[in-house]
C-alpha cells in the first residue's frame, strides 16, 4: 500500500516531466529526423538557451516565483546590441560591449521591477508579466522614436529610411556566433560551442557559490517565509530587489548570448517570448514555482527544445501540414505552464490542508483547541507567488 502511494506520489510530483517526455518520445519517430541531427540541435540549443533559463533561479530561491520580468533584461541586452552594431564593434569584444551597455540598463530595470514586485507580494508572476508589457511600450518608444533623433545613431544601415527609429530586423553579422565559434570543437559528427558552455558553466558555479553566501542564505530564508525572515533581521524587500536585479542582469546577458547565436534580432519583438520560453523550459525540467535546481534547467532546455525540433516535422508527416506541428508547439508551451501552475496550486492546497489537519490533531490532543495563529503563520506570507 505504501509502495503504491509512493509511486503515485512520484508521478504526481513529476507529472509535467513525465507527460512531456512521453509526448516528445512519441513524436521522435514520426518526425523522421536522424538521431545525429537531433543531438546536434540539442547541443546547439543548450548553449543558446541555458543562460536565459538559469536567470530564473534566483527569484525562485527568493520566493518570488517565475520571473516573467526577465523580459526587461532581454530588452536591455537588445539595446546593448543595437549600440554595438551602431559603432560597428565586432566579435567577442562586440558581445562584451553589448553586455557592458546592457548592464546598467538592466540594473535599473531590475530595480524598477523589484520595487514594483515588492508592492505586489504574493502576486509577483502576474505583476511581472504585465510590467513587461508596460516597459515594452517604453522600449518601443525609445527604439522607434528616440534613437536617431535624440539618441545619436551613426549607422544608416540600422536606421529607418525616415531618419530616426531602428529597423525591424537587424543583421548581427559582426557578432554572429562569435562566442560559439571562439572555442568550437568537434567530437565525431558533433560541433560543441565550448566557449558558450564555459560561460554557462561559470554561471552555474556562480549560482552554487551564491547560494552559500550570506545574501544567498538570506534569499532562501525570505523565500521560505518572509515574516520569519523579517523577524530574524533580514531586510526582506532589499533582498527581493537584489534577487530580481541579478535575474534581470543575467537575462540581459542571456539574451545577448541567444541573439549572437541566432545572428539577427527582431528589434521590436525578439524579447516578447523570452520569459515565456524560459519559464516553460524550467517547468518542463521539473521545477515548480517555489523549487528549482540547476539540473531542472538543463533537463528542461533539452526536453522543450527536443519537442520544438521534432513536433513540426512530426506534424507535417502525420497530418501533411507543418502548421499542425507549429500549433502543437505553441499549445504545448502554454499547456505546460498552465498544467504546472495548476498542479502546483493543487499540491499547495493539499499540503496546507494536511498541515492544518495535523495541527488540529496536535492542538486538540494537547489543549483541546485549535491554534488559529500558528495556522495563519504556516499559510501566511511565505505562500506561493501567483
Amino acid at each position, binding site marked *: 500500500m505504501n509502495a503504491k502511494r509512493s509511486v503515485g506520489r512520484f508521478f504526481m510530483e513529476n507529472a509535467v516531466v513525465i507527460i512531456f517526455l512521453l509526448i516528445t518520445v512519441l513524436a521522435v519517430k514520426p518526425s523522421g529526423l536522424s538521431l545525429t541531427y537531433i543531438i546536434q540541435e540539442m547541443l546547439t540549443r543548450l548553449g543558446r538557451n541555458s543562460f536565459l533559463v538559469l536567470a530564473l533561479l534566483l527569484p525562485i530561491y527568493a520566493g518570488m516565483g517565475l520571473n516573467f520580468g526577465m523580459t526587461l533584461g532581454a530588452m536591455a541586452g537588445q539595446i546593448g546590441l543595437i549600440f554595438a552594431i551602431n*559603432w*560597428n*564593434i*565586432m566579435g567577442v*569584444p562586440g558581445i562584451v560591449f553589448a553586455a*557592458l551597455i546592457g548592464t546598467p540598463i538592466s540594473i535599473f530595470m531590475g530595480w524598477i521591477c523589484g520595487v514594483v514586485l515588492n508592492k505586489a507580494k504574493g502576486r509577483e508572476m502576474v505583476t511581472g508579466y504585465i510590467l513587461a508589457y508596460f516597459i515594452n511600450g517604453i522600449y518601443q518608444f525609445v527604439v522607434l522614436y528616440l534613437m536617431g533623433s535624440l539618441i545619436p545613431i551613426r549607422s544608416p544601415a540600422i536606421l529607418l529610411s525616415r531618419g530616426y527609429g531602428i529597423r525591424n530586423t537587424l543583421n548581427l553579422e*559582426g557578432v554572429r556566433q562569435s562566442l560559439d565559434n571562439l572555442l568550437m570543437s568537434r567530437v565525431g559528427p558533433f560541433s560543441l560551442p565550448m566557449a558558450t558552455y564555459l560561460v554557462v558553466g561559470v554561471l552555474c558555479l556562480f549560482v552554487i557559490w551564491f547560494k552559500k553566501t550570506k545574501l544567498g542564505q538570506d534569499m532562501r530564508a525570505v523565500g521560505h517565509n518572509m515574516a520569519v525572515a523579517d523577524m530574524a533581521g533580514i*531586510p526582506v524587500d532589499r533582498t527581493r530587489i537584489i534577487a530580481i536585479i541579478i535575474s534581470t542582469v543575467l537575462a540581459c546577458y542571456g539574451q545577448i548570448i541567444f541573439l549572437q547565436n541566432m545572428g539577427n534580432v527582431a528589434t521590436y519583438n525578439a524579447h516578447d517570448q523570452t520569459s515565456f520560453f524560459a519559464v516553460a523550459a524550467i517547468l518542463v525540467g521539473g521545477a515548480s514555482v517555489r523549487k528549482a535546481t540547476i539540473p531542472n534547467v538543463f533537463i528542461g532546455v533539452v526536453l522543450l527544445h527536443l519537442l520544438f525540433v521534432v513536433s513540426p516535422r512530426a506534424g507535417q508527416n502525420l497530418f501533411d501540414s507543418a502548421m499542425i506541428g507549429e500549433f502543437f508547439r505553441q499549445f504545448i508551451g502554454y499547456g505546460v505552464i498552465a498544467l504546472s501552475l495548476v498542479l502546483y496550486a493543487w499540491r499547495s492546497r493539499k499540503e496546507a490542508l494536511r498541515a492544518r489537519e495535523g495541527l488540529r490533531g496536535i492542538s486538540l490532543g494537547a489543549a483541546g483547541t485549535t491554534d488559529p495563529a500558528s495556522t495563519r503563520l504556516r499559510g501566511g506570507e511565505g505562500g506561493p507567488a501567483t
Partner: protein
Amino acid sequence: MNGRATGPRTFARRMIVRGVLFAAFVGFAALAFVTGKGHTLLIDNKDAEDGSVQAIDGVMVSVDRQEALELYSGDRDKAVVMGQAHTVSIEIIAEGTKVRKKFRLPIGGEMLLLSVPKLMAGLEPWVSPFVPVQVVVSEEEGAGESNAFTSPGGTPQTMMVLPGDEPAPEPPPD
C-alpha cells in the same frame, strides 16, 4: 532595520568600491571598443589618379589571416577587419615577389582604402580614408515619391497615414 551599515568610514569605503567598479566598467567598455571596432578595408589595385603608380596585373593580397584575394589590374575588393593593428601580405603572381607590411588603422575610420600599387612602390600614404560618393537625387528623379505624376497637383506621399488624415471614402453609388 535595513541591514546596511552606516558611518563615515563605511560610506567612504563604499564610495571607493563604487568608484573602482565604475572605472573598471568604463575601462572594459573602452577596451572592447578599441579591440572590437570593425573597419572595412578596400583593397585597391588601380592606377593612381595622378598617374604616379600603375596597377599591378595579378597580385594575391591577404589581410591578417584572412583568405587571400586575387586582384588584377583595375580590381578592387574588400576585407572586414577588427581592431587597429593589422598585417597585409602581398604576392605578385608573375614575379613571385612577396611583401609583408604592418599597419594601424585610425579608430574612427569606418571605411579605408589600401592602395596595393602605392604600397609596392613605397609611396605614403598607402592607406587613406575612403569617402563614398554621395548620390544627390534631383527633384525630377525624386518625383516618383509623390503622387503628382498620377494626380496633377498631388501632394508628396508620406510614409505613414496619421489618424484623421485618412482619405475620405468615396460616396456610394446611387
